[in-house]
């Protein structure tokens, strides 16, 4: 079972990214569990951090292109190409990953994030654990943090 401290570490990583890079805080919505073996609905861009060691699974940050476009504009980036959107989602995942490395230490082996094309809206977590979804609301956009750990 996920602990509150573990979830907080991942959420803090995402919150830190928005506070520093977008200069606007993200609001954390009500978390929920996906039950009955369902797969979480994801947006078009998803950054995935694989986790092994004391825990096994993945943490994902998924966001719609509309949110990433505005995030890039907030950073004074005029190039809102697919490449830059993927780089951006990777940066958010990297911040979450760095936060987890700092908090969890050697018990967790945390991968370099990979960016997955989830245009079809489907993502199957790499383990059987029930995905825990934390909505992250920023301006009028909503992203999700998906924590799926055994």
């Amino acid at each position, binding site marked *: 079972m996920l602990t509150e401290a573990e979830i907080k570490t991942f959420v803090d990583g995402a919150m830190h990214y928005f506070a520093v890079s977008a200069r606007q805080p993200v609001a954390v919505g009500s978390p929920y569990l996906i039950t009955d073996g369902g797969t979480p609905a994801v947006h078009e861009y998803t950054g995935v951090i694989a986790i092994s060691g004391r825990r096994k699974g993945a943490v994902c940050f998924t966001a719609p292109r509309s949110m990433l476009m505005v995030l890039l504009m907030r950073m004074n980036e005029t190039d809102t190409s697919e490449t830059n959107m993927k780089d951006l989602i990777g940066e958010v995942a990297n911040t979450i990953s760095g936060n987890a490395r700092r908090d969890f230490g050697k018990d967790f082996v945390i991968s370099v994030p990979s960016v997955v094309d989830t245009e079809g809206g489907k993502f199957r977590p790499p383990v059987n654990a029930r995905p825990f979804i934390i909505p992250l609301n920023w*301006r009028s956009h909503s992203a999700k943090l998906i924590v799926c750990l055994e």
Partner: protein
Amino acid sequence: MADILVVDDEPEVCDSIALTLGLAGHTVRTAADGPAGIAACREQAPQLVLTDLVMPLAHGFEVIGRVRSEFPGVRILAISGGGEFGTSAYRPEAVTTNAYLAAALEMGADAILRKPFNRQELLAAIETCLASTRNSTEH
């Protein structure tokens, strides 16, 4: 050149589109949400409404529906970068840009444009919409 109303809740996006269209010679008004967009249409109907789809208060589909019913001659260009309606709602189905844009066409939009887009893509989509106005007037 056309009178264009841009409806988008993101000020950065709205301003960027307005600047691009203004530099291309169009007359541009902006509205920050669906109700403001509908009110602006009622005040003075534009030739073309460019509307985002995922917005607070009233989403773009409502804007398209209202414009279609009240101002049938106004052209509509729908833009979207995906997202969710209701910031905390759990939606088990895919919430993709393409699905939203397809729904916008079904609702009556004349053309669609996926975010992000560059200047050339925006101006081409506007021209397509306005050309459809000219074609329907000629026939």
